């Protein structure tokens, strides 16, 4: 059925071109913008002609892919980690040794604010995606509002987070090595993993959460405000509606990635490394853990005589 829609477009666009010609379009509402919606402007007709650009893609993705992918990715990640837990099991480190103070109070507060934001935003996002199953209505509508409120919290936390961890999160040669050995998670042995203060996995999560987060904020804002008038967007030569469609597509795909890595992050902190949660509560990591999991960082601290 969608194919039919898409197939008809060639005819329409030929028809449209014969109307539109090469003369610049001067629209009726130009200059006397009526204060209601730009989506009511003659752009609308333009949109009928250019529907295939993004509209068709969005419809296709939303009908066939978004829900399936979200479901698949979430379940897939959970299954993988469940198997990991059964087969390989968690890593245990001695917690009786010296504690290394790694996260100061400010960093912990920021982290937990962001964490709270994620805890709000991701489930509410899921509620919207799987709104059918929840029957829609007030529940999901409130979830949508909560999603927006969570975003505000996220905006407040993600900016300082980005600044405070920007330097240690820069990629190093260790990260390549880390990736090659999959962070040492595929073995039950306690191996020394090459990583600085943060390992490549944490860095991936960081960059996705911050840069990806920014993109999600922007695309989300576009969808939230729906009707905006920014000169910079006009220069993109896109119709308002297409900006919205692209936003929705990008937001969904990033959402999948964020979900996957958020679940990973949860698994790592709660299950895969026993006691790692403590470090975000007290700010201290055990020396044992640092020694193995962040070997380069450990060496650096040693060298600087901080331990």
């Amino acid at each position, binding site marked *: 059925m969608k194919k039919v829609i898409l197939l*008809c477009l060639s005819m329409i666009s030929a028809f449209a071109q014969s109307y539109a010609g090469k003369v610049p379009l001067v629209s009726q509402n130009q200059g006397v913008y009526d204060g*209601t919606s730009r989506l009511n402007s003659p752009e609308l007709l333009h949109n009928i002609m250019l529907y295939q650009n993004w509209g068709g893609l969005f419809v296709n993705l939303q009908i066939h892919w978004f829900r399936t992918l979200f479901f698949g990715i979430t379940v897939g990640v959970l299954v993988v980690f469940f198997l990991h837990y059964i087969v390989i099991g968690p890593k245990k480190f001695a917690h009786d040794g010296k504690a290394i103070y790694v996260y100061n109070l400010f960093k912990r507060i920021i982290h937990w604010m962001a964490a709270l934001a994620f805890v709000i935003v991701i489930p509410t996002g899921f509620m919207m995606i799987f709104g059918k199953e929840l029957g*829609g209505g007030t529940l999901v509508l409130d979830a949508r509002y909560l999603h927006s409120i969570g975003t505000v919290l996220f905006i407040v936390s993600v900016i300082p987070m980005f600044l405070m961890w920007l330097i240690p999160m820069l990629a190093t040669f260790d990260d390549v090595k880390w990736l090659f050995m999959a962070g040492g998670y595929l073995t039950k042995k306690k191996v020394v993993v090459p990583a600085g203060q943060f390992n490549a996995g944490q860095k991936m999560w960081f960059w996705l959460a911050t840069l990806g987060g920014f993109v999600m904020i922007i695309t989300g804002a576009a969808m939230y405000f729906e009707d905006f008038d920014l000169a910079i967007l006009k220069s993109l030569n896109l119709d308002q509606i297409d900006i919205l469609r692209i936003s929705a597509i990008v937001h969904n795909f990033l959402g999948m990635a964020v979900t996957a890595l958020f679940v990973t992050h949860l698994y790592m902190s709660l299950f895969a490394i026993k006691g790692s949660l403590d470090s975000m509560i007290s700010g201290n990591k055990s020396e044992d853990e640092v020694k193995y999991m962040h070997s380069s960082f450990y060496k650096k601290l040693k060298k600087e005589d901080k331990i």
Partner: protein
Amino acid sequence: MSSFARMKFYCDEKRCIDCDGCSVACDEAHELPVGISRRKVILLNEGIEGKEFSTSVACMHCTDAPCEQVCPVNCFYIREDGIVLHDKNICIGCGYCLYACPFGAPQFPTDGAFGTRGVMDKCTMCAGGPEPTNSDAERKLYGQNRIAEGKVPACAAMCSTKALIVGDAQSVSKIYRERVASVGHGVQSAPYGWSKAYGK
């Protein structure tokens, strides 16, 4: 679905004169808030001889309506006569139907605190919504239910030049054929969005 029973909108660009009668008739009939335009008239190529034309656009009540397909909460339902309606008590105002719509039909009022966007509003072909027919609740949420009263939707009924026509597919195509066959009408291709809404 049998095709003879399909209700369709048809706007004859050769007759549409950009008088906005349909859009105001709609606004007024359903007492819509000012920010909502269920139906709008669009003028293109203003002032260019031989190219200026206008057409009236609202929800076309498409066959295989994409809005219905993308809705994450399934708030849409399609009547047997093809009228695409939605349930405002289920809608969450996500805007996906707008992105899916080739005609920009879904409208979102800003209500509530901080200008939050409310639930979607769109042309109902004057057929109300899921609430009991002609109840106050229905009128408040969706406007008049003229179809239930056996009346023509306000926009087409009040179209000044009878450019905008609504009816079952058979009657519409009959009028359409008569007009195309008329001597002075010129060669007419399908009106804007026709094939997009109803297939070829």
